[in-house]
């Protein structure tokens, strides 16, 4: 027992199992031609309202969206999203603060991905924990509501840095809360250079056209299998 220990170099990503599952998911999504967007934000930023409007608009365009919703305990979000008529499935995480790739894999077991054009994954409301977990998505979207203040990107730089696009929600309340757009945008660009930022109001519909155009363009430029 007193002999010197042997040191072996390992150099493995601690989350390598999650990454392996995420890689397999990404390949499946690609093969099925489905474009996958994950949504992260703090609790109450308006993910569900934004997603409900997004699903409804895609349905109106005869596209086939679906959503997976991570929620700590309730199924309220899933029930709200189901009003859009799109397939919705709840992932109850219990006390876990984030979604992992294996949970996505399991939730998708009964779904035929070939029948979908878009899949949205609404993460648990949390700006810290989801940042390290790849879910196989094509696009990571971070939401920030005008009521949260301008400095969220500086306080949670990691999640904002890993996002591909930022959506500023509840823009209809901007004036009431003296929201400083220039400062918010500068803070976003400080943690993620050239980050596209879209301002929306799910309530009034403001900015939703711009978001739909962005989504269409992002899904076209993703390397997707052409449909027959």
């Amino acid at each position: 027992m007193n002999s010197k220990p042997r040191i072996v170099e390992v150099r493995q990503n601690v989350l390598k199992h999650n990454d392996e599952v995420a890689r397999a998911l990404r390949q499946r999504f690609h093969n099925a031609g489905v474009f996958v967007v994950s949504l992260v934000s703090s609790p109450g930023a308006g993910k569900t309202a934004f997603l409900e409007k997004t699903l409804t608009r895609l349905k109106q365009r005869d596209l086939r969206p679906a959503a997976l919703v991570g929620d700590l305990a309730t199924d309220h979000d899933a029930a709200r999203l189901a009003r859009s008529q799109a397939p919705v499935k709840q992932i109850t995480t219990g006390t876990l603060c984030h979604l992992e790739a294996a949970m996505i894999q399991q939730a998708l077991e009964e779904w035929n991905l070939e029948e979908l054009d878009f899949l949205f994954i609404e993460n648990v409301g949390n700006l810290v924990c989801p940042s390290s977990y790849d879910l196989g998505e094509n696009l990571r979207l971070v939401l920030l509501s005008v009521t949260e203040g301008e400095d969220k990107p500086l306080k949670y730089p990691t999640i904002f840095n890993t996002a591909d696009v930022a959506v500023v929600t509840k823009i209809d309340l901007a004036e009431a809360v003296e929201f400083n757009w220039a400062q918010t945008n500068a803070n976003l660009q400080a943690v993620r250079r050239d980050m596209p930022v879209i301002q929306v109001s799910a309530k009034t519909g403001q900015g939703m056209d711009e978001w739909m155009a962005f989504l269409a363009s992002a899904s076209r430029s993703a390397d997707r299998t052409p449909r027959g």
Partner: protein
Amino acid sequence: MPGGVFENELLPLCDSMHELSIALSILDVAGEEAEHHGGGQVEAIHVRLGPLAGVVKEALLSAYQLAAERTRFEHARLVIEEVPVVVYCSSCQAERPGDAVHWFRCAVCGTTASKVLHGRELELAALELAE
């Protein structure tokens, strides 16, 4: 993956569920690697952790104690090496340390970096195995 291996009364002792699930992943990968290298007694687990990994060192250390309890790692130390943020600065055209407050800015000229080279590490670096 989060497992059901802990008795519920232990959970409130842990600072964070997030760090607990990270600790479980560490044990998972460490167990595999220990087997791969002959399956001996693990005396220490070395992890490299960057500030951009979203994991708090102190919380991870206490979560590790909880996760390792009654496993083969019960007596294995967790040694965390903190990795500083290094960015590629397009203005300096060089690798630079990240700013202490604004991690994604070059500490030398203040330009927002286009690429993060180090700082996201959450890596099982090495194992100390008893001979």
